[in-house]
């Protein structure tokens, strides 16, 4: 798969080079979650800068990190920040570092299918962790019912559904559970693929949605965008301030704003369980991964130009595609950090 992706990139690169030899070609690969907005951004950016050709392949976050580390692409993209081992591997191979640039925000929501229940359910962190650990097995368990007074929940077994493919969505979900539950952290921990204690695996958002839709008494998690576009019902989650918050573009941006104050210089931050009364707790940035040094100055300037445009005009396009905008503070920090790309 990886090799194929590599070959595909080379072929695309060659095709682009032959097609217009005067254009500057920049190749990137990685996360599939932000692919729709990246595609739109690239198309709009190229309309204004006809001499620049940007190719983005959505091969998955793990693939993006691998490709950019191996140097087959100019930039990578990931839904989870690179860990210290991965940063070290990049530094060792190239002799310089790689920088993270948040581009948009996404969120993951719990979706369910309980016959006879049409109400919007409230989930406490303990309830979600308990369900996914296999400790809470009935819908009328006090941990769920306690937060949903007035809703008549059945005494049926909960069918737990998770992603089977390695994905940024699973990373965000497990990152959240690991923060709110000590049990989860020690037994399962966070990751794009983990050893799920219980449940059925569905491939992709559509796989999870398909199983949830078809299985009575089931619960699964999908990307907010997927839930909105497919009109799936999803529940509210209690945030760290104690309020039950429904995920939408504002509550996701609020989570980022809450985290902006403590934002580290390298932007490698998890904003799950973020502080703030209106913050939705299962939110995350998605990042571009840009090497610190470029041997080709023209390529570097073009890529920096693209990132600058993306942080300014580009941000106005994101909400039409159901992504949440970056907070202003984060944008200001990123523009400063962009100077470190040489």
């Amino acid at each position, binding site marked *: *798969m*990886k090799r194929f992706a590599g070959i595909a990139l080379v072929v695309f690169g060659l095709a682009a080079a032959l097609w217009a030899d005067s254009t500057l070609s920049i190749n990137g690969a990685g996360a599939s979650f932000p692919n729709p907005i990246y595609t739109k951004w690239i198309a709009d950016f190229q309309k204004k800068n006809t001499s620049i050709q940007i190719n983005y392949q959505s*091969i*998955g*976050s*793990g*693939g993006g*990190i*691998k490709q950019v580390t191996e140097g087959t692409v100019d930039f990578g993209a990931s839904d989870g920040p690179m*860990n210290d*081992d*991965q940063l070290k591997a990049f530094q060792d191979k190239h002799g310089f570092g790689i920088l993270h640039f948040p581009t948009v925000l996404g969120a993951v929501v719990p979706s369910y299918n309980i016959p006879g229940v049409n109400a919007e359910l409230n989930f406490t962190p303990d309830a979600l962790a308990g369900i996914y650990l296999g400790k809470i097995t009935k819908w009328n368990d006090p941990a769920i019912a306690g937060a949903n007074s007035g809703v008549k929940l059945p005494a049926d*077994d909960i*069918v737990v559904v998770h992603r*089977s*493919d*390695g*994905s940024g969505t699973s990373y965000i979900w497990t990152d959240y559970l690991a923060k709110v539950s000590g049990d989860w952290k020690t037994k*399962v*921990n*966070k*990751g*794009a*693929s*983990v*050893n*799920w204690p219980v*449940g*059925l*695996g*569905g*491939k992709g958002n559509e*796989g999870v949605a*398909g*199983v949830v839709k*078809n*299985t009575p008494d089931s619960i699964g998690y999908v990307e907010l965008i997927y839930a909105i576009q497919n009109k799936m019902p999803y529940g509210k989650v209690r945030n760290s301030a104690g309020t039950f918050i429904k995920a939408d573009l504002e509550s996701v941006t609020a989570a980022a704003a809450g985290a902006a104050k403590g934002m580290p210089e390298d932007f490698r931050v998890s904003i799950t369980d973020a502080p703030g009364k209106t913050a939705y707790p299962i939110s995350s940035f998605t990042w571009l991964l840009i090497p610190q040094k470029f041997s080709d100055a023209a390529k570097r300037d073009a890529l920096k130009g693209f990132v600058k445009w993306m942080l300014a005009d580009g941000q106005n396009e994101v909400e039409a595609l159901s992504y949440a905008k970056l907070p202003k503070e984060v944008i200001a920090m990123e523009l400063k950090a962009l100077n470190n790309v040489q």
Partner: protein
Amino acid sequence: MATTTSPAHGASPLSGSRHFVNRADHGDEIARVITFIFAASVVLITLLLVLSLWQGSALARHKFGFSFFVTQVWDPNAGIFGALPFIYGTLVTAVVSLLIAVPLGIGAAIFLAELAPARVSDTLEFFIDLLAAVPSVIYGVLGIFLIVPLMRSYIEPALKKTLGFIPLFQGPAYGIGFLTAGIVLAVMIIPYIISVSREVLLSVPRDQREAALSLGATRWESTWKVVVPFARTGIMGSIFLALARALGETMAVTMVIGNTPQISASLFASGYSIAAAIANEFNEASSPLHSQALIELGLVLFLLTFILNGIARLLIIATSQRGSGTANA
């Protein structure tokens, strides 16, 4: 191909090359060399495949050794990888699919080859070939939206009621799991069995049938006691082709098996297959050990196919010695 008029090759000072050219002029030699290269490339590709899988999984092989085959845990975070649940899932789904597909497929092939009018047989053959060419993801979608709800609401509860005393049919029925995956696989491999078996049955010489009939056998007796045994080797071949497809099927299986690396006696439980695990996790496997463990899974699948093929060969040899028909139909 071969040209009889030889151009002025004799002028060449190198007798060796002249010799070669002369021989090459006959065409046979060229054909022999070229086809030999083609044949050798099959072996070469297989060896290269094994080699690259072997090298690609070095880290995982050294770390886990033989325990890879008997460990039941698959935990990327803890760095523990065991192939047993995946091997189990792959074998169980393949066996379930064969149990369903073999009787159905061979029965249909006998009907088409021996009993049905030629026009019906040829028309149906067209549809069967069409079925064999349907991409597996289509079968997966069919599985999720048609077979899974059907299994959950009707078939699995019915099985539970009637055969629930057997551990195979116990436990919660979600409609997703080994049984459903096996059924979807069966639907996918039946066309292979029918298509190949029908061809084999049709190629049984006429005199075999006529001899049986002249000895007073009924039509069915001649079919079941003479024609089918004669074609046994070819029919076996079709079954093993189908088995190979069932072992390696990825997309359709991952959509209906539930993707849970666990070993369960119940066919209603969810499981995982080797091919599905590789397809699901390879893209996002970020640690070298994780991706190498997945490559080692590929090696295990290769080994599994190799062993089963070996058993198949032995079975064919054993039955063709015992049987009445000659080895080749």
